């Protein structure tokens, strides 16, 4: 009779979304997809270490291997952080077209670093340089994201469309400022900057920075997985998410910070690289569905595999003597791929 008010003695309330429960659990198919993605990461990683020949265990062999391992680590980290950053922003904006690149977060981090380089060049900074680029990238990314966040607030909530528009404008302004600094810089520095702006895994970045960013990325990915259930709920309207017991404001702040940190980290290692943050969540969503706990893990692996895979192709095909910036390749492959993925939505009017 009393169907709706059955049992349920008040049990201790779990941390919302903290456990895989009920229908949120991974199915067998999900596990197969995740294992396949993991295997893919492994295969491209081994290839990355292998491509270019084997030089034994001598002095030369060791230093070659160390260099490749460094670049491999950078590729994995950059790919994973961009893909997860994109996943987070897409969940937050309820828009599968959002990405750190599109919203000006990547260019913000790049601007921060360039500004720092320029300050260094004119001699305005010196002794504090040790942390210079790292700090500048984080400041740049967070400032851009902060501006986007604040300007797109409407009546205390975020208007997804307004946010995208603000993001596009912030991106354009960052781009203009980058050009400005570029012009003021001497030719040598200008060349380095231009290369770096293409999205280039620069081994000069060094192990110390890599380890720092790697730890940051891993922590952020864990946090993103933990927030997965909340992000699922947040993809519905504010009123619905609120009614289901989600504190949207807190989640948004958390997810924004994570996305900003992830992007800053990736830019620090490799400059701004586009499309990873857009394509990986999109592709993985096709395989795993939209639940964010799985999506974050899957995207991280897909992003890592995509960057490292592109690097392997660059080395194998000897594109630009095997030194072509991976960002350029990503844009060339990514653009058409993304258009192809958009196909079902294009020409379908505004009902999507």
């Amino acid at each position, binding site marked *: 009779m*009393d*169907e*709706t*008010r*059955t*049992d*349920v003695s*008040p*049990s201790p*309330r*779990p941390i*919302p*979304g903290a456990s895989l*429960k*009920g*229908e*949120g659990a991974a199915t067998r198919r999900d596990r197969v997809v995740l294992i396949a993605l993991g295997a893919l990461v492994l295969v491209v990683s081994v290839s990355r270490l292998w491509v270019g020949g084997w030089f034994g265990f001598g002095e030369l062999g060791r230093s070659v291997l160390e260099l490749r391992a460094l670049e491999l680590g950078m590729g994995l980290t950059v790919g994973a952080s961009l893909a997860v950053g994109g996943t987070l922003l897409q969940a937050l904006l*309820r*828009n*599968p077209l959002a990405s750190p690149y599109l919203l000006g977060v990547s260019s913000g981090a790049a601007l921060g670093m360039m500004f720092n380089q320029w300050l260094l060049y004119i001699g305005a900074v010196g002794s504090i340089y040790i942390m210079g680029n790292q700090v500048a990238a984080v400041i740049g990314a967070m400032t851009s994201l902060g501006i986007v966040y604040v300007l797109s607030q409407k*009546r205390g909530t975020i208007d997804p469309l307004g946010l995208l528009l603000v993001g596009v404008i912030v991106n354009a302004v960052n781009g203009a400022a980058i050009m400005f600094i570029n012009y003021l810089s001497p030719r040598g520095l200008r060349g380095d900057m231009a290369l770096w702006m293409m999205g280039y895994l620069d081994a000069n970045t060094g192990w110390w920075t890599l380890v720092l960013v790697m730890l940051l990325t891993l922590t952020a990915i864990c946090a993103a997985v933990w927030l997965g*259930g*909340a992000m*699922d*709920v947040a*993809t*519905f*309207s*504010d*009123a*619905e998410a*609120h*009614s*289901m*017991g*989600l*504190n949207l404001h807190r989640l948004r702040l958390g997810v924004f910070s994570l996305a900003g940190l992830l992007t800053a980290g990736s830019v620090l290692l490799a400059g701004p690289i586009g499309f990873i943050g857009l394509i990986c969540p999109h592709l993985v*969503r096709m395989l795993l*569905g*939209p*639940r964010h706990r799985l999506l974050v893990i899957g995207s991280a692996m897909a992003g890592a595999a995509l960057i490292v895979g592109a690097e392997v192709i660059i080395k194998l095909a000897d594109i630009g003597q095997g030194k072509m910036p991976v960002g350029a390749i990503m844009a060339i492959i990514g653009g058409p791929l993304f258009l192809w993925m958009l196909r079902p939505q294009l020409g379908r009017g505004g009902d999507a």
Partner: protein
Amino acid sequence: MNDAVMRLDEVSFGYHPGEPVVERITADVPSGQLTAVIGPNAAGKTTLLKLMLGTLSPTRGAISLNGKKLRSVAAGDRAAMMSYVPQRSSANFAFTVEHVVAMGRFALPWHGQAMTDVMAACDLEKLRRKPFIELSAGQQQRVLLARAMCQATGDGRVMLLDEPTSAMDLRHVHQTMDRLMRLRDAGLAVVVVMHDLNLAARYADAVWLMQEGRLVAAGSWRDVLKPAVLEPVYGVKIEEMQGRRDGGTEGRSGEPGRPVFDARLAE
């Protein structure tokens, strides 16, 4: 008898100063009753619902839930007590029907039995693994109701619904109203924004009539659902179908004399 689970005290709200959307509404939401919120377009019905939900905060006045100030109720406790069914959902990603329904338990302990019961009750078993965004509007409304019912299982006290049947076929309209009546019988305060006066006339225990942000009439259906009360608000000629032999229809609870209305433009 009339224990109000929610109280609205002089609640006003406006997006811009001087332009109130909801103005000085004082009302009790009684447990175990179905309250229909009716009124012409832009009367502030949906805004009122969002105020009760807590998505919007009153610019003046106060709302209490279960004796506590709504704003001070923790999100998890609020979700346990109060659920919400929007008219449309703004899903952007292809969650399956069962994922959407399961989200009702997001802030609450998992309850597998509730999930099974609700899927059956809302006629959703066949749609289980379908992406929510690919369903028809009426099917989506059933899923949204199921999600709220899943959420309300256990400690649910209030359910707020915004035109929950607006896109449904006839069978599902009455099936849905029947589900709501059962929730009501189980002690929930069910508040439904609706446009169909005859649906309200058939099912509501209490009726709130809104006009331009104000509550112009509130009370039992007998007192509010009368042409003399409705006509000035809707600006149409409303006729109670007295000419019929049965003089109206039966309410779900078996009370006779529920009115049926016909409306036409006033000359």
